[in-house]
């Protein structure tokens, strides 16, 4: 008989093996799915690698595709680490875009570096405001943050659409192309974030900002009192309470931080690639969901988030350029969902070991039932 037995601590190999094997397993199941629907998985995967990474210019495009995943990934890692399920990454991203593009339009004649800084701050503020609503509701009214953050995604998308389509809106372009078809004003050329050149590779400025932020987060969690307290509150709320740490303040600050990171992603998206508000791409991009997959696979480590974002960036990059019968539109999401499911299942090997045979006498001591924070009210 096969039984699951609790481990006392997680062996080190699990930390690396589980994410790697999850990706492999997801692609294996994806291959079965492709075969079952009459496609050739080998050629599909070959084209993903070609178009996503190895063909000329696609490495560059993969970096561009990585940037809008990195920030939601960091946002989810920060929140999920503390069992705060912020799935409003999309909404906070959109608010960041709205604020950053607004300030870029306002600062028409300012020097580049000032506009750049202002866009970053605006993105942070926009995302933090949008995460602040569920944060306050969770901290003071005990309202489950899962549904509130998600509902605010729809509201943010509607706000963005309204700002693009309404003729009274400051964002609406009433000259040029915007007359015929409603669209938002493009930000002034000086406000665009130009890619930085490293050898022959152009790296988006947003990506550089993201990597710096990831390192800062790593340091914040490793070596500051705030990081320590957040880890204690996340791992054991009772222990934090006995130590006199305020869970309420941690909830608010972590959710604000999470929203700020997603909002910064929105600012980077406007500065790097979109150069203005765009309705369609904002509503359907689903960066928030990808962020959750990335955070879980990176086991909430900000530096690992950078690596995993790049892997999913390659996948998204391929998904963007490949279309047609051999590359069905839902393939990328399906693979992402499978990766997350396998990563979750793989966590078992961190918590349990498989035992074959009868129960031995010296099993691991039983711990208390895990308490799941954030189950609905």
């Amino acid at each position, binding site marked *: 008989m096969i039984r699951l037995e609790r481990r006392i601590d997680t062996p080190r190999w699990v930390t690396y093996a589980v994410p790697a094997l999850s990706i492999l397993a997801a692609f294996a199941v994806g291959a079965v799915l492709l075969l079952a629907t009459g496609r050739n998985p080998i050629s599909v995967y070959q084209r993903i690698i070609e178009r996503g990474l190895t063909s000329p210019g696609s490495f560059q495009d993969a970096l561009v595709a990585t940037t809008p995943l990195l920030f939601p990934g960091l946002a989810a890692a920060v929140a*999920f680490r503390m069992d705060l399920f912020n799935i409003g990454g999309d909404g906070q991203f959109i608010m960041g875009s709205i604020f950053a593009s607004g300030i870029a339009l306002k600062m028409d004649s300012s020097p580049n570096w000032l506009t750049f800084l202002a866009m970053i701050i605006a993105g942070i503020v926009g995302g933090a405001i949008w995460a602040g609503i569920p944060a306050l509701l969770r901290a003071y009214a005990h309202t*489950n943050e899962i549904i509130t953050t998600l509902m*605010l995604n*729809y509201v943010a998308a509607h*706000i963005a659409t309204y700002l693009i389509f309404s003729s009274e809106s400051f964002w609406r372009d009433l000259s040029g192309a915007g007359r015929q078809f409603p669209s938002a004003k493009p930000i002034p050329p000086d406000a665009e974030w130009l890619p930085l050149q490293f050898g022959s590779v152009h790296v988006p400025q947003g990506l550089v900002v993201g990597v710096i932020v990831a390192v800062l987060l790593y340091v914040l969690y490793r070596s500051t009192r705030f990081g320590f307290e957040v880890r204690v509150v996340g791992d054991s709320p009772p222990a934090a309470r006995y130590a006199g740490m305020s869970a309420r303040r941690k909830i608010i600050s972590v959710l604000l931080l999470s929203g700020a990171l997603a909002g910064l992603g929105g600012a980077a998206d406007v500065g790097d690639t979109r150069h203005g508000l765009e309705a369609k791409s904002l509503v359907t991009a689903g960066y928030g969901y990808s962020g959750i997959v990335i955070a*879980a696979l990176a086991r909430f480590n900000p530096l690992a988030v950078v690596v995993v974002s790049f892997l999913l960036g390659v996948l998204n990059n391929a998904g963007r350029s490949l279309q047609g019968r051999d590359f069905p*539109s839902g393939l990328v*999401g399906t693979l992402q969902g499978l990766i997350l499911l396998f990563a979750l299942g793989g966590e*078992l090997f961190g918590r349990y070991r498989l035992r074959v045979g009868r129960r031995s006498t010296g099993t691991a001591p039983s711990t208390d039932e895990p308490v799941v924070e954030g*189950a609905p009210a």
Partner: protein
Amino acid sequence: MNNNLFVDLAHFAIYYGTPLLFAALGGILAERSGVLNLGVEGIMLMGAACARLGAAVIGGPRWVTLAAAVVVGMVGAGLTGLLHAFMTVTLRVNQTVAGLAITILAGGAGLSAFLGETWELPRRDAVTFNDLDVFGLKDAPIVGPLLFSHNALVYVSWIATVAASFYLFRTRMGLNLRAVGESPQTADALGIDVVRYRYVHVVAGGALAGVGGAFYALSISSSSWVAGDNYISGAGWIAIALVIFGFWRPDLTLVGAYLFGAFSVLSLRLQVRRIRIPLLESMPYVMTIVVLVIVSTGWAKRRLGAPAALGIPYEREER
């Protein structure tokens, strides 16, 4: 149809509330067994895609095609629910993240879109639900639009609500189910098979969410198949909120579903009448938040709280 604005609103509040009601009833079954299912959004989209396929390929009289299509939707959604049950009950992973994974896997950018494209759903016509004329009373004042002129699935949802209430509170199995959700240890000690109860109700809940998805595919959004989350406009998430709003009771959930249906139809009606209120479309989502805040305040929670074991994996070895 009576032109009275209020009656018209009420009729369509019921109409737009029905898919929410189906999905929320499914959510009640799963959560009463102690399993939180955040995959409802993805499961509904799977139900929608499968029902759409059924309606396009199954022949026969109209009502046979429609019934079979709904069943196909239920099977597709139920299988997706089975995956959630396997993850949460057998592998005992974190239910919140597992549910999100299901939604990412099956949702508008995932499997439902993949299958929709494979089955060439955008190019196929599907049979759709028509409003009935029950007892020939369709044109009766007030009660006609309210009670006698809905499509068949609305009447099924009424039966399902009564049945779910009866099942939960008047049958032995319902009692066992609530025991499993409140205290699986106690239920296990009484000889109730906790694992089986959780599996059955998560899968049944998925199938009910599939009917909700089918309602979109074969009625509300029946004009065409468009892959993506907008096809059901976040109904799965609203349904999860409705379970909380209804305090895990089918009757209160029906009231909540129609309330949300009213929010949806109100914003649609005002748009048609060219009354432009900015951001009116976001009203159902804002109201979801408002309602959640109200029910999560202390007094409501203490009186009619969630199943005590909701979200907690049951580990028999640790008893």
